[in-house]
């Protein structure tokens, strides 16, 4: 049996803390955080002693989770690349396992990003899909992550599977930022709406965003560690089975 490392005990804490923080972020996002300015109006009213002459944008609330989730998925993919490179150098299957699980986490968070992003866009832009740089990049990312797993399934020899997956993982991780860069710099000709991300968030909005950011990162880390433990156990089981057959 493998020893339990410090990370395994940390996993519980991370998961718990992550859940707490992200819940706090979630609650604050809907209570204390002010709503973002929308279209200017000809009329005004006093709300809570504040002079308001614009529409309030509720849909922006999606971003309190959407952005952290998106960043988490990128970080997960970064770990795929890092573990893939370590695997290629050391040829130790434990790094292949880590790279694979990091990619699984990336897939989950990419899907979460896509789902929340598409709903926001459906409301704000009135379409389910447009070839906007971020969306396109995420779509490409989704395809690459799915391709990573299909590639793994198509290879039988474990060493070859691990090596090829690592090579593709590195390429995919490099391709994602390139994809964003190129689609951003060369826009499509019919560009619908410019993103309304306000730079310099007021503290009321920054706090819930940061809370959810750290919370979700911790949740991701916790889930990663659990999955790692579970998959290690499974590998041990396969070994035991193989030994019994001999």
């Amino acid at each position, binding site marked *: 049996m493998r020893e339990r490392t410090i990370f395994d005990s940390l996993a519980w804490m991370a998961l718990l803390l992550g859940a707490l923080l992200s819940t706090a972020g979630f609650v604050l996002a809907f209570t204390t955080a002010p709503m973002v300015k929308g279209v200017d109006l000809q009329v005004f009213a006093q709300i809570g002693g504040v002079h308001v002459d614009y529409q309030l944008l509720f849909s922006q609330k999606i971003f309190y989770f959407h952005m952290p989730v998106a960043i988490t998925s990128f970080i997960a993919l970064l770990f795929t690349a890092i573990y893939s490179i370590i695997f290629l150098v050391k*040829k130790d*299957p*434990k790094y292949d396992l880590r790279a694979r699980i990091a990619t699984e986490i990336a897939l989950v968070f990419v899907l979460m990003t896509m789902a929340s992003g598409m709903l926001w866009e459906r409301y704000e832009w009135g379409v389910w899909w447009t070839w906007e740089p971020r969306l396109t990049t995420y779509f490409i990312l989704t395809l690459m992550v799915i391709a990573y797993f299909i590639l793994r399934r198509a290879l039988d020899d*474990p*060493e070859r599977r691990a090596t090829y997956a690592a090579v593709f993982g590195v390429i995919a991780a490099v391709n994602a930022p390139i994809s964003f860069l190129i689609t951003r710099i060369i826009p499509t000709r019919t560009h619908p709406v410019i993103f309304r991300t306000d730079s310099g968030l007021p503290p009321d909005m920054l706090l819930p965003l940061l809370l959810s950011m750290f919370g979700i990162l911790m949740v991701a880390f916790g889930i990663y560690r659990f999955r790692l433990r579970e998959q290690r156990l499974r*590998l041990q089981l396969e*070994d035991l089975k*193989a030994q019994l057959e001999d």
Partner: protein
Amino acid sequence: MTDTVAIAPDIHLALAIQAEGLGKSFGSRKALDNVSFELPEQAFLSIFGHNGAGKTTLLRVLSTLARPSAGKVEVLGLDVREKPEELRSRIGLISHRSMLYPDLTAEENLLFTARMYGVQNPKARVSELLELVELTARRHDPVRGFSRGMTQRIAIARALVPDPALLFLDEPYSGLDPHAVEILDRLLERLRFGKNLVMISHDLNHGFALATHLLVLAQGKVALFTERDELDVRSFREFYRNSVGAGGI
């Protein structure tokens, strides 16, 4: 035949192969586990074992196609990990797959190989080899149209292009008709002088008859390594049956 790949005179090649604690594993799967043996120069080693016993993996490690994950292996005095390219110019491999391009002619295939190795005057070398395998008449025909035996003969010629000091044979007899077996036998008889041969064989009798040394692998470990003269074929069969099992005989 001389070879200008210079060998420093002070290196004395007493051993063709020296394996020490050789292992090839991926995670908990061990294809080769602590394989150690020493094969002297001018030897003919026959490797036996079941499917999955690690025969092919061993051959791939010795021929630099796969990297060992543990231990130290020197082939012709060259470490397979540190000097693979130098070693590659001195070894040849004949497997049950011909490693030829079916759409190229016999001559084109051999010329390609000769040029890649850097043989000077490749045309003369190729003619010589075609003569050796008795296929001069078919030199301009694409390999695709050749029979299994003819293809295998070209494959042998291909492996001999750089005049390797060590020749690996991975089940070279599989799929050959009796006539082709005869030709291969004759070729091997001619080749074994001045060369080292390492052969994987399914056929106990055949492998035993040709060999000077025997290596039996079981589950990636050495079950037996001995000079052939220490055993007669009956006791070898008996050993094989008892230690490895009845299969493969």
